[in-house]
């Protein structure tokens, strides 16, 4: 099973340093919880981990190899669930999932889509168009992408947004099963998602602006 590692990462968003000197290391079965106030760079770090943005300095390593060397292999090993749910109003839940499932080249995308919806407890909305889904259901359809195929790394950006307590518990169960099978998960969350012994990464420890504010003194 592979390892996922980041070394001395700096993230720059339009000339502002979001975080700097950030390192992490995830072993198979590990979970990394990102905490920190709004704007501390949790989403930026997840997008950076997914390879959607490139780090300004530092490197990501997958299985000891720099991700930048084999981005295709790395992309095939991860699932990213962001803030936006990528739900098409005109397509049914099962069509949306099947279209994502079809992109990885494995057989029977529609069957896998139905199975994934079932695992998320969404069988009853499988044939509803996206426009009729509630915010929580949209989020769960998006989360169902995690169940389409076994991939080692899950990157979840506040996955519990809009979810009811039952769905949060279901997600926690899926994450636990994923980790038992040797999978890794990185999750940013405000609410408590029940994870067994996670590593916690507080992003405010790596902020570059915080030091300046400390020097200037707290105006409040």
């Amino acid at each position, binding site marked *: 099973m592979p390892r996922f590692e980041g070394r001395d990462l700096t993230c720059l968003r339009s000339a502002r340093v979001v975080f700097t000197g950030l390192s992490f290391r995830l072993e198979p079965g590990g979970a990394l919880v990102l905490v920190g106030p709004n704007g501390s760079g949790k989403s930026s770090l997840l*997008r950076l981990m997914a390879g959607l943005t490139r780090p300004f300095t530092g490197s990501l390593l997958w299985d000891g190899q720099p991700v930048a060397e084999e981005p295709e292999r790395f992309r095939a090993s991860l699932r990213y669930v962001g803030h*936006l749910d990528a739900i098409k109003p005109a397509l049914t839940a099962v069509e949306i999932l099947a279209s994502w499932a*079809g992109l990885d*080249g494995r057989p029977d995308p529609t069957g896998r889509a139905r199975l994934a919806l079932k695992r998320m407890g969404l069988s009853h909305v499988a044939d509803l168009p996206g426009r009729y889904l509630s915010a929580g259901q949209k989020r769960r359809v998006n989360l169902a992408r995690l169940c389409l195929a076994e991939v080692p790394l899950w990157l979840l950006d506040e996955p519990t947004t809009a979810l009811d307590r039952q769905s949060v518990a279901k997600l926690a169960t899926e994450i636990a099963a994923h980790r038992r099978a040797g999978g890794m998960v990185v999750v940013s969350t405000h609410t408590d998602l029940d994870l067994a012994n996670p590593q916690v990464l507080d992003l405010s420890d790596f902020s570059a602006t915080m030091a300046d504010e400390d020097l200037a003194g707290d105006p409040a």
Partner: protein
Amino acid sequence: MNAFFRLLARDLRLALRQGADAATAVLFFVLCVVLFPFGIGPEPNILARIAPGVILVAALLASLLSLERLFQADHEDGSLDLLALSPLPLGGVALVKVLAHWLVTGVPLILAAPLLAMLLNLPADGFGILLLTLLLTTPLLSLVGGVGAALTLGARRGGVLLPLLVLPLYIPALIFAAAAIDAALAGLAAKPHLLLLGGLLAAAATLAPLASGAALRAAVE
């Protein structure tokens, strides 16, 4: 390759479910052309003379109309992030989108063209060549327009920026397409013009997706 066709099937299905987009382009095309006889007067010779140019320019504007939305919906709802993480390279994603755009808007324009040619009194021996030039021009418009759509993605007032960026690039295609039809109507060989159009199309088909892919990557970051 499998992923390519699956994504194409998804885009076509989306376009068919939201049929309004495709219908808008064709209706715009028809109305745009129909305005000319009203503005210029029902003089058959004049109408026949301007018919090729009017039809080509109207087709160009109609295809531009729906280009703004080409990547925008996927950008706004987060699908583009997921496509960027899919095994398909972003250049391939752009090619799929452009192909779907051409199938949904370009092909109906070609089908509507003979009717409009008749309306503008284009001589009957010009019909074949008109369809042929449109068959070469419309995919070219979609390909070049796709680069513009990808570049203006996420820009404020991208809808205004897009025509300013793309229309000048349409000029070579317009020149050769109009010249091909004029040549055929004058009894001259249209083949050189068609070959040049074909050359432009071949160049755009290989280079435009790469440029769009790079622009999409920038939009995701």
